[in-house]
């Protein structure tokens, strides 16, 4: 399947639906109708990459609640998992939910849905040796762009990993409390079409409460809650759609457009989720209840700046304590002493 002969292979033993390769997105082609795709939780995607010494926007495996089982073939791999609170195990032995570890040849890393979260990211030190489409690995299954032949990852896939040349990351637990973002309020900037709604409808929108519907996917997050009405009808002439745009179709039930959204669309958009809160919303499981909070552009930019500063501080990886795991197991992980801070690159 893959033309080059890389040093190591990440072999997929099993994969639930919706496990895809994602880099920072396919940018520059929205004007031709090409969806950017990219990670649902950008911050967790970046954290996993930085933890193994990759650039923040490098290609990683986005794992859905369907889970995945992988092993290293031909050579060991350095991997990191971050995002949500998934259930990890190595050869059947449980691990913390956010980890950097050495995956030996034949060792089985199993990732399953855990206590919280809808998406986690499996980053591998090095580069995925799969062809790019329009300069990106980001998978968009609706148009068959990127990833592995335009599709989600399935059992039997062998993903070649080319070495990046950066030094091997040290294994341990990823300490990133800022990744754990409860979803009580999701911040939005009103518009661009808030004038298609009367004031009482804007109030109803902000009051909520909203519940994440089971219907959602990478394209959209459907919400259950108050039924909104339009002041000026719901047929607008199509215009651009940003990630996080909350469109209100004729039935009055808001839809938040996510990573796999179309480039343009024709329903009024009452508000837009701010960048730093997109990942929090994406991680919310069906049934989660929350409210929207309107903020100014300045507040949204300040939140974005805080997020960038958090990432710039680097990812802290702490060796596991012997009291938590058997010494034999820890020796198998090749853990070293001391707290290691991995500086972001790229």
């Amino acid at each position, binding site marked *: 399947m893959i033309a080059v002969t890389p040093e190591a292979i990440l072999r997929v033993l099993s994969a639930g639906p919706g496990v895809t390769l994602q880099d920072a997105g396919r*940018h*520059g*082609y*929205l*004007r*031709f*109708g*090409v969806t950017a795709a990219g990670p649902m939780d950008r911050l967790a995607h970046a954290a996993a990459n930085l933890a193994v010494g990759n650039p923040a926007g490098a290609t990683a495996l986005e794992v859905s609640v369907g889970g995945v089982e992988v092993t290293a073939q031909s050579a060991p791999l350095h991997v990191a998992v971050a995002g949500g609170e998934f259930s990890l195990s190595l050869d059947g032995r449980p691990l913390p939910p956010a980890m950097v570890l050495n995956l030996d040849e034949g060792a089985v890393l199993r990732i399953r849905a855990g206590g919280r979260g809808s998406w986690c990211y499996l980053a591998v030190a090095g580069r995925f040796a799969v062809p790019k*489409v*329009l300069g990106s690995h980001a998978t968009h299954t*609706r*148009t068959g*762009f990127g990833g592995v032949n335009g599709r989600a990852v399935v059992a039997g896939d062998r993903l070649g990993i080319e070495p990046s040349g950066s030094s091997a990351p040290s294994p341990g637990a990823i300490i990133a409390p800022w990744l754990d973002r409860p979803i009580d309020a999701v911040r939005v*900037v*009103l*518009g*661009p*079409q808030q004038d298609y709604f009367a004031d009482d409808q804007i109030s109803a929108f902000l009051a909520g409460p909203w519940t994440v519907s089971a219907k959602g996917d990478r394209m959209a997050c459907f919400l259950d809650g108050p039924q909104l009405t339009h002041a000026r009808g*719901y*047929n*607008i*002439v*199509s*215009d*651009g*759609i*940003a990630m*996080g*745009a909350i469109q209100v179709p004729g039935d009055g039930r808001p839809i938040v457009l996510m990573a796999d959204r*179309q*480039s*343009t*669309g*024709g*329903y009024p*958009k009452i508000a*837009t*989720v*701010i*960048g730093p809160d997109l990942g929090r919303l994406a991680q919310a499981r069906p049934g989660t209840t929350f409210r929207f909070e309107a903020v100014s*552009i300045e507040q*949204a*930019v300040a939140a*974005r*700046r805080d997020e*960038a500063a958090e990432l710039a501080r680097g990812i802290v990886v702490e060796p596991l304590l012997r009291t938590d795991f058997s010494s034999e197991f820890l020796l198998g992980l090749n853990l070293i002493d001391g707290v290691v801070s991995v500086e972001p690159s790229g």
Partner: protein
Amino acid sequence: MRRHADLDPAPGLSDPRFLDAGEAALVVQFGEIVDPAINDRVLALDAALRADPPAGTREFVPTYRSLMIHYDPLEIDRATLVATVRRAMEAAVEGRGQATIWTLPCCYDPALAEDLDEAAQLLKLTRDRAVALHHKATYRVYMCGFTPGQPYLGGVPEALKISRRPTPRPPHAAGAVLIGGGLCVVAPFVMPTGWYVIGRTPERLYAAERKDAFLIQAGDMLRFDPIDLTTFRDLEQRAASGEIVARKSAA
């Protein structure tokens, strides 16, 4: 497919509105309707900004009536961006210069034009009359969107303006030529649709391996050249091997 408002005449040009689509996208809105003069202003601003992209801007997405500017607010703040856009508008040359005209082969054989008879019946036209109306018109590409390389066309003759289906139909083939919502599109990807399939082009509007992956862009003009089923099969094979089977000319 999304709904489209009816085609109303322009109420007159005014200053654009600057709308926020979150903190990282600015919408420069020149109007709310489908109108060539409004679209001209969108494309003029798009061309001016692309010629000299302001630092911190990422992508420009022209639509019927607005330009969406994706930007990094940590690199350029909103006020600076708005001021930059205003300056670009003053410098922008109105109109599109010499537009590219594409002539796209289109087969209207009912074997490929699955909904032609249904649409003609709803429009109270004969099949032949509907086909003649469709291929004798010249269309304007207002924007591209929905799927990669898909042009949204205006200039549909009044007698061919049809509203969308009450419920979507099953997926159509790649290359389907569709009418609905008073507009026409050519759909490069297999998708379910609320519109009517009245023809199919053998041309690939998106082809990853071609030097020009995308054939058509906003501002181009488009005509349809009727072909029979045999010609369609021939051109389809040639297009599959990477040849561009549409004809390109300058206005």
